[in-house]
């Protein structure tokens, strides 16, 4: 009989503790709900700094950008979020009906290509697609120099990449490479050769994790991943392909009809301020969209945008042809296994 009683009291105590601690948290007066597709480290860094400066508490909802957009879409009758942050330019462009326009105080510092002409969304940071190399598994100077080098059969099964069906950047990279390798069937054929060497992972975070931990010698990922692992002591090298790469923008937008519109705009201004961008770069190596930071003298010593060769990329056309393209990539993946 004693045991039963102990059970009851344990359960009762847990519920009670929960109720007591859960109560006050909901009574926040100044807060902002951010739908963030960023990883937790970046979120925590920025949200803490924002709360410290403004006194506005951030309620984050963190998830993949797909989930977040789905949520905004299904919540459109009664929006729950104030800001969506960390999603790609194409997702911002295709979902403008859910966002409300706001002219950021930092607008002038952001190149025109990285913001909406009607100020519905604004870019925050840029991702350059790079090749990551584990220098413990592949000696520093024996790695690839370009995308074309990756077609070498010696890399078979040694390159980590994300499933383009599940990652915007992987989709962009794959389609950019079709163009880079000559476009049309010629381009597709080379991409197929590339996929022959690739391990297609389900989650993008598995790429830097896999290369950093030595599961895969090479990986195709966003540049920040390389710098994060490198700066924390992993044998990681970041390679900017000589044949050119592609830049992807991540930005934010104010959710139309969100519960805290003032806090939302305050946050949008905050994340694009020069000092905030410096803080972010120092800690998480996100390349800012604004071009007035002295990258060479900041941690990581990232090259300036002007020093990186970019390959031509027709984003609009590929976004248009997404469904068919994804099917084709699926077939290639299946065929090359």
């Amino acid at each position, binding site marked *: 009989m004693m045991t*039963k009683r102990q059970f009851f009291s344990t*359960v009762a105590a847990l519920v009670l503790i929960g109720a007591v*601690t859960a109560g006050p948290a909901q009574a926040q007066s100044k807060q902002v709900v951010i739908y963030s597709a960023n990883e*937790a480290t970046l979120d925590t860094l920025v949200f803490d700094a924002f709360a410290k400066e403004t006194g506005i508490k951030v309620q984050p909802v963190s998830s993949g950008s797909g989930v977040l957009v789905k949520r905004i879409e299904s*919540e459109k009758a009664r929006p*729950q979020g104030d800001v969506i942050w960390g999603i790609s330019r194409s997702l911002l462009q295709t979902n403008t009906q859910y966002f409300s326009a706001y002219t950021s105080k930092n607008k002038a510092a952001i190149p025109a290509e990285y913001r909406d002409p009607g100020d519905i969304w604004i870019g925050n940071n840029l991702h350059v697609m790079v090749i990551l190399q584990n220098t413990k*598994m592949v000696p520093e100077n024996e790695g690839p120099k370009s995308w074309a080098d990756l077609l070498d059969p010696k890399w078979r099964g040694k390159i980590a990449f994300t499933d383009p069906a599940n990652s915007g950047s992987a989709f962009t990279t794959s389609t950019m490479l079709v163009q880079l390798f000559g476009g049309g069937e010629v381009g597709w054929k080379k991409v197929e050769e590339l996929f022959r060497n690739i391990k297609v992972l389900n989650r993008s975070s598995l790429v830097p994790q896999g290369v950093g931990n030595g599961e895969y010698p090479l990986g195709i990922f966003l540049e920040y991943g390389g710098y994060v692992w490198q700066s*924390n002591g992993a044998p990681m090298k970041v390679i900017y392909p000589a044949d050119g790469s592609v830049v992807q923008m991540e930005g934010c937008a104010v959710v139309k009809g969100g519960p805290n519109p003032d806090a939302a705009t305050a946050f949008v201004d905050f994340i694009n301020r020069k000092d905030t961008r410096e803080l972010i770069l120092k800690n998480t190596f996100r390349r800012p969209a604004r071009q007035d930071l002295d990258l060479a003298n900041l941690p990581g010593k990232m090259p300036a945008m002007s020093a990186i060769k970019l390959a031509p990329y027709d984003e609009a056309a590929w976004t248009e042809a997404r469904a068919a393209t994804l099917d084709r990539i699926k077939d290639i993946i299946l065929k090359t296994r």
Partner: protein
Amino acid sequence: MRIAAARAGFPLAVAAVAFAFLGLFLLYPLFGVFKASFLDPTGVSFTLDNYARVLSRAFYRASLTNSLTIGLGATLATTAIGVPLAFCLARLPVPGKPVLLALAALPLVLPSFVGAYAWVLLLGRSGIVSQALRAIGIDGVSIYGKHGLILVYTLQTFPYVLLPTLAAFKAIDVSIEEAGQNLGASRWRVFWTVILPVAAPAVLSGALLVLMETLENFGVPFVLAEDMPILAVEAYKLFIGEVGGNPASAGVLGVLLVACTTVALLLQRYYLGRRRFATGARRTPPELVVGAGLRGLATAYCWGVVLLALVPFFAVVALSFMEYRGPVLHPGFSLDNFLRLLDRSQRPLMNTLVLASAAAGGAALLGVPIGYVLTRYRSRLADVLDIVAMIPFAIAGTVLGIGLVISFNSGWLILTGSPLILVLAYLVRKLPFNVRASSAILHQIDPSLEEASINLGVSPARTFLTLTVPLMMGGIIGGTILTWVTIASELSATVVLYSGPWATMTVVMFQALEGTSAGAASAAATVLIVVTVVPLILVHRLLRRHEMSLL
């Protein structure tokens, strides 16, 4: 015509509540999700084109085959491992049995994606164990691919087979066995022809749980499948792919997933429906007297399996005390992970405790009466309810989560943004477990007790509340705590449904692992393990007192 109304009031009321609840929070949301798979692009007219399109693609057919292969492989493997283990623990003199039994349920506690992460660190291409093996000349050991998935699933889900089978072996009256031997059968023959067939329903229901868990799980193949298409993963990607989902195709895969699990469920019901072995041991069979060799073998086997299954546990706990710089693991002891976690994870921990308690309590409140009605009032209506109440087994958490968001974000009932939607999702998902556990308990309570009470003038509803529930109490508490523990490690629905302040420990873990703080993730996992192991040990003690199993 049957004059049934005389005693149908109580079961009808329970069935009505159950159907209303499941209709509203299970079938309606699912309908919303699956509707898309039957509609043409205009969203108006009915079509099967989506099915034709998806099934015509080799990629998706491969995902179906892979999922079934792995699911069946894991089911066979768990059975092959779990049944002998159950027999050893039930009948052979294995030292440390109580400890073994307590440890054996632990694999259910660790969220599967954390377990997969730990396995990669151990048995990945540059895993600690793989490297050690390579150093002594054994190459090519890898946790990736089909065999790896089957291994991880097997070690994670074998308790589903072990626990009910163990209970069944113990419930076989020794006289049955003696009769077999008396008729001239050897012990070995008695095991194959008498004991195993009598325990078969228990083995089968455990195996079914394994099949369903492995089919719907996406956390493990997400990490370990690499290139291989897996049904649950592809469905997840199509539902919430970063590049924009494809609701029609996703719906098709979702329906396929549900179809597979439903077929398995129906096969099992068909099989069990034709065999009813009520044993209820008067005399629990004694431990067998065996030689030192066999005893040693059994001991090595039991401890070997249980410890192997706990490897990811030890690994995660060990990792949480190691130094992480950003995402990079450095050898060396450190408490930083916990300090960093402490900064921001008190609220998620509380959320986990509160939400899991509310949902487990709710699941008991709803599941126990349903289990009672299903067990005591067989009818066609009860059969339908039985099937409906088992559906959540077959539904991936992600799918249910999306359905709930779609259904309850606007209109007359708005639930998004409130913690209630998480509680409801957990409740629906864990309901089958509670219903089954309640049935199992009820099978051990003589129905004539309830009839005696009713006969003495107490209404069926009051009899249930004042007689049956107290008699079931030990089992109910045990079942509720087990539910509580599994809810605490739930991720797939949570990640879709949580809002603002209601992130749970698993969300923290998932995000930390997704991002660059694996250290914080392992620390969070350690905290979750500690928090859930304590009640689990209490359950275990309770179950031992009642000599029963809840699966």
